[in-house]
C-alpha cells in the first residue's frame, strides 16, 4: 500500500512541484498446451518528484517510500532542474498554467480475492475444454494477466488525487496446420477491473472459444485478399486502432510540436462530416471507460478532448507545458506508467462517436469489399500514414459475407481515409487490453463503432 495522502510533504516544495507515490502490481500465468510456462507475480513501488523552473524540468525517483526518501527525491529533482537552468537559459520566464483538482477512485474488486491456485485451475479448465473439443489444434496458449496501478499525487498547485486502476485480461491463442502451414488466431477478453471482476467462471468463455475456433477454421480455408483500394468495414477493433494510432498520435500536442501533419490542419475539415472523434477522459454516457482518468499525473482535472467535431479538427491533447506553448488549457492527458516515469501526453480512451447505421446495413451496402474484424498490431506516422495487421476478416460479395481471408494488412493516409467514411454503426465496443508505446508503455482504451470506408488492402 502507498500513502493516499501526501499533504504532509508539501513543505518540501519550493518551486512548481509534483510528488507521486505509486505501486504497480502484476500477476501473470501462462499455459502452453496444458503446461504452466509462467507463474509469477511482481510489484514495483516508489516515489517520484518533478520540478519545473524557468522552462526546464527536473525529475527524480527512488523505490524507498520513507519520509526521508520523499525529501531526498524532491531535493534531487530540484537539483536536476538547477543543473538544467544553469546551462539552458533560453526558456527563462515560462510559467505553467495553474490547475487544481481533487479526486479519489478505488476500483479494487468488491468480490473476495482468488488464490493463485484458483487462477491456475481456471486456466486448466479453459485449456481442457479446448483440448477435448478441438483436438486437431497444433497448439493452444492461454495467458491470464492482471495489472493494478495505484497512485497518489500532490502538486504545489494544491491538486490531490488517489487512484487504484486495475486491468484484468485473458489472451487465448489457437494454432492449427493446414496444408503443412501454420495458421493462428488470438482473442483477448477482460478489461477494466481486477481478474476477479472478469474471470470467476470459465464456462462463461466456452462460447467465445467456440467462436474463436470457428473463425480459425474458416481462416485456415480462407483466401488471399485482392490487393488494392477497397470498400471495407472496419469493426470496432480496427476503427479504434485507426482513431488511436493514425489520428490520435498526430494530435498529441508534443507530436504536433515535433512536426506532425495535424499541426497544419487545426480548424480545417479533415474528415467526413459523419465523424466526431473524442479522447474520452473517463466515461461515455455514464459508462466507465477502460482507462478512466479523473485527475491526470500533473494534477489537472481530466476532461474529454474533442479532437474532431463533425469532420473539423478542433483540438489537440495537452499537458501543462504544451498548453502553455499553444496558449490553451491543459486537457488532463499527462500520464505516467511507473513510479520512475515522468508524465507524458497520452491518450486515454480514444474512439469515433457512434453513428446511425447497423452492421447489417453496412455489409449490405458493399458489393465487393471486406469486413475486417481484428487487428494484430498497428503503426502510424507523423504524416497519419498507417499500416495495421489484419488477422481476421471476411470477403463481402454482393452485400453478403463470403470467405474468410488469410492474414493481410491495410494501409492508407488516415486523414484521407476519414474522408471516405460514409456509414458508422450505432453501437460501441471497447477493445480489451489496449497498450500504447511512447517512451513508456501504458494501458489505453481503444474502440468505437464499426465504420465503412476505403483503404488499401494488401494481397499476397
Amino acid at each position, binding site marked *: 500500500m502507498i500513502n493516499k495522502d501526501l499533504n504532509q510533504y508539501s513543505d518540501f516544495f519550493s518551486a512548481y512541484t509534483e510528488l507521486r507515490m505509486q505501486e504497480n502490481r502484476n500477476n501473470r500465468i501462462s499455459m502452453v498446451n496444458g503446461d504452466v510456462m509462467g*507463474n509469477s*507475480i511482481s510489484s514495483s513501488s516508489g516515489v517520484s518528484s518533478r520540478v519545473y523552473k524557468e522552462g526546464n524540468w527536473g525529475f527524480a525517483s527512488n523505490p524507498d517510500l520513507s519520509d526521508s526518501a520523499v525529501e531526498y527525491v524532491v531535493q534531487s529533482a530540484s537539483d536536476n532542474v538547477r543543473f538544467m537552468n544553469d546551462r539552458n537559459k533560453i526558456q527563462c520566464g515560462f510559467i505553467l498554467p495553474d490547475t487544481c483538482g481533487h479526486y479519489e477512485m478505488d476500483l479494487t474488486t468488491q468480490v473476495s480475492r482468488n488464490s493463485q491456485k484458483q487462477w491456475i485451475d481456471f486456466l486448466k479448465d479453459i485449456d481442457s475444454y479446448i483440448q477435448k473439443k478441438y483436438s486437431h489444434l497444433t497448439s493452444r496458449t492461454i495467458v491470464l494477466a492482471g495489472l493494478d496501478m495505484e497512485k497518489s499525487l500532490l502538486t504545489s498547485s494544491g491538486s490531490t488525487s488517489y487512484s487504484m486502476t486495475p486491468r484484468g485480461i485473458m489472451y487465448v491463442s489457437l494454432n492449427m496446420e493446414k496444408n503443412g502451414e501454420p495458421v493462428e488466431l488470438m482473442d483477448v477478453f477482460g478489461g477494466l477491473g481486477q481478474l476477479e471482476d472478469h474471470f470467476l467462471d470459465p464456462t462463461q468463455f466456452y462460447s467465445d472459444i467456440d467462436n474463436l475456433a470457428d473463425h480459425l477454421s474458416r481462416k485456415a480455408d480462407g483466401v488471399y485478399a485482392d490487393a488494392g483500394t477497397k470498400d471495407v468495414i472496419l469493426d470496432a477493433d480496427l476503427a479504434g486502432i485507426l482513431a488511436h494510432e493514425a489520428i490520435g498520435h498526430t494530435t498529441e500536442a508534443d*507530436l504536433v510540436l515535433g512536426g506532425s501533419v495535424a499541426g497544419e490542419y487545426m480548424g480545417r475539415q479533415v474528415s467526413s462530416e459523419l465523424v466526431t472523434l473524442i479522447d474520452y477522459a473517463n466515461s461515455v454516457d455514464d459508462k466507465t471507460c477502460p482507462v478512466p482518468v479523473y485527475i491526470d499525473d500533473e494534477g489537472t482535472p481530466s476532461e474529454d478532448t474533442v479532437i474532431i467535431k463533425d469532420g473539423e479538427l478542433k483540438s489537440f491533447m495537452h499537458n501543462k507545458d504544451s498548453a502553455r506553448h499553444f496558449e490553451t488549457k491543459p486537457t488532463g492527458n499527462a500520464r505516467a506508467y511507473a513510479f520512475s516515469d515522468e508524465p507524458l501526453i497520452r491518450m486515454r480512451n480514444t474512439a469515433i462517436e457512434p453513428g446511425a447505421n447497423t452492421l447489417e446495413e453496412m455489409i449490405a451496402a458493399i458489393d465487393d469489399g471486406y469486413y475486417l474484424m481484428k487487428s494484430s498490431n498497428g503503426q502510424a506516422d507523423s504524416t497519419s500514414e498507417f499500416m495495421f495487421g489484419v488477422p481476421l476478416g471476411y470477403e463481402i460479395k454482393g452485400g453478403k459475407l463470403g470467405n474468410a481471408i488469410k492474414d493481410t494488412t491495410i494501409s492508407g493516409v488516415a486523414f484521407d481515409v476519414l474522408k471516405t467514411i460514409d456509414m458508422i454503426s450505432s453501437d460501441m465496443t471497447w477493445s480489451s487490453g489496449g497498450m500504447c508505446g511512447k517512451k513508456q508503455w501504458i494501458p489505453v482504451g481503444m474502440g468505437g463503432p464499426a465504420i465503412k470506408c476505403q483503404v488499401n488492402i494488401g494481397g499476397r
Partner: protein
Amino acid sequence: MPSQYWGSLADLRDAEIPDYCIEQLVKAGADKAQCVYSAGEKKELNVDAGEFSLFRTTANHGISLSVIKDQKKGSLSINKINQDDIDEAVVTVLIMAASSMPDEAYDISENQPAKSFSKGPTEPELEKMYNRMEEFMDFSGSTFPTTIIEQAIMDFSAGTSYYRNSNGVAFDETGGSYSFSAMFTSKEGEDTSSFNSAGFSSLDMDTTLHKGGSIERLLKESAEHVRTKPVPEKFTGEIIITPDCIMNFIGFILGNISDYRLIAGTSLFRESIGEAIANGLLTLHSMPLSDDLSGGYFVTGDGYEAGNATIIDQGILKTFLLSLYANKTGFERGPNSGGSLIIDPGKTALDDIIKSVQQGVLLSRFSGGSPSDNGDFSGVAKNSFYIKDGKIQYPISETMVSGNIVDMFNNIENISKDIVNFGDEIFPWIHFGGITVS
C-alpha cells in the same frame, strides 16, 4: 541516496542479500531456489521539440525469486529490500509454487565456478553528456534546418546484478553504458516527412553523437523525404534492407528458434538444425561477450555463464536459442539468451550493390504487421527510396513491400561490406530478390 535496509539485513552487503534469500527459501522448504538481486541508477537528459527539457535521475533495486518444490514452480519479484518484505516474499513464492502444476522440465543451473564480471564505467560524465547533446542539437539545426528533433534522449545507466541459486551458483555483474536516441521529422511548409528514429549505445562519450550508429545518414534522408511519391508501378523486384531495418526480418527467424515456438510445436525450423535455412551468404552470431559491442551480458537468465554463438553459419542453422526449461523439447539448451547480434559483412561495397539493382527499393524503415506464422509479410516502406537501373531515384511513400521471410533469406543476392555498429548489434545492408513492391 543509498538503498535502505532494515532489521537484520542492515548489516549485509549487497552481494549477501541474495545469499540471505536463498538461505531462507531452502529453509522454508524449496527443493531448488534462484535469486537475482539488482540495483542501479539512470541519469537521463531529454530534448523535446528541439529544446532541452528534462534532466531525470532514477534509482531502483529489486529481487527476483524463483522456487521449485515437488517439480512445481513459482516466481516473484519485489523492489522493497527489507527483511519483512523479503521474508513475506519467501512465504508467498512457495505458496505460488505449491499452487501450480508439476513439470519435469523445471530446473535451475548446475554448479559453476563463482565469477565476477564487469564492463563499462560505473559513473557518468554528466557535463560531457550535456555538451554532447548541445553539440548534436547545434549540428542538426545548422546542417538540417528543416528537420525537427521531436525528441532526443541521452542516458547513462549503471548497476550491479547478483545471481545466486541453491546449487551454489554465484555470479556478479557490474556495468554501465551510455545510450543515445533521437526521433525526428522534417517539414517544409505543409510538406512533412515520415518520422524516423536512430540511436546507439557506447561505453564512453568520446564520439560526436551524430557520428554514432546511422544517425547522420538518417537525418540527411529525413530532410530528403519531405516530398515523396509512390513507386511508378507494381513490380516484383529487389530490396536492399538497411542495418536500421533488418531486425524486423531477423526477428522472425529468432522467434522460430526460441522457447515459445519450439515448446508450442509451431516453429518452422524445429527439424532444421544442421540444415540450410538461408542462402550461404548469411552468417549470424549472438555475441554477448564481444568486445566490438558496448552492450552484451555475462550471465544468462537461467543462470549460466554466457557464451558467444554462431546461430546461422553460411546459411546453416547451428543452434536454437533455448533456455534450460526448453530442454523439454528434447533439444539442447542454447549457449546464451540471444541478442547482441552480429551479421558478418559481405565483400561488396553498398554503392556497388545499389548499382546492381535493376528495379527495387532501399528499405530504411518497415511499418508492417507481424508476419504470418508461415513467414508471409507485408507492410509499408517508410523513409525508403526507389531504385531503378542501378541508381537511387527518389524518396517514396505509400509503397507496400510484401513477400515471405523464409523465401527471402533463401534468396539473398548480396551482403554489403559496409556495416553499422549500434553498440548492441552490428549489421550490414542485405540485398534480397523476389519481393513484391506495389
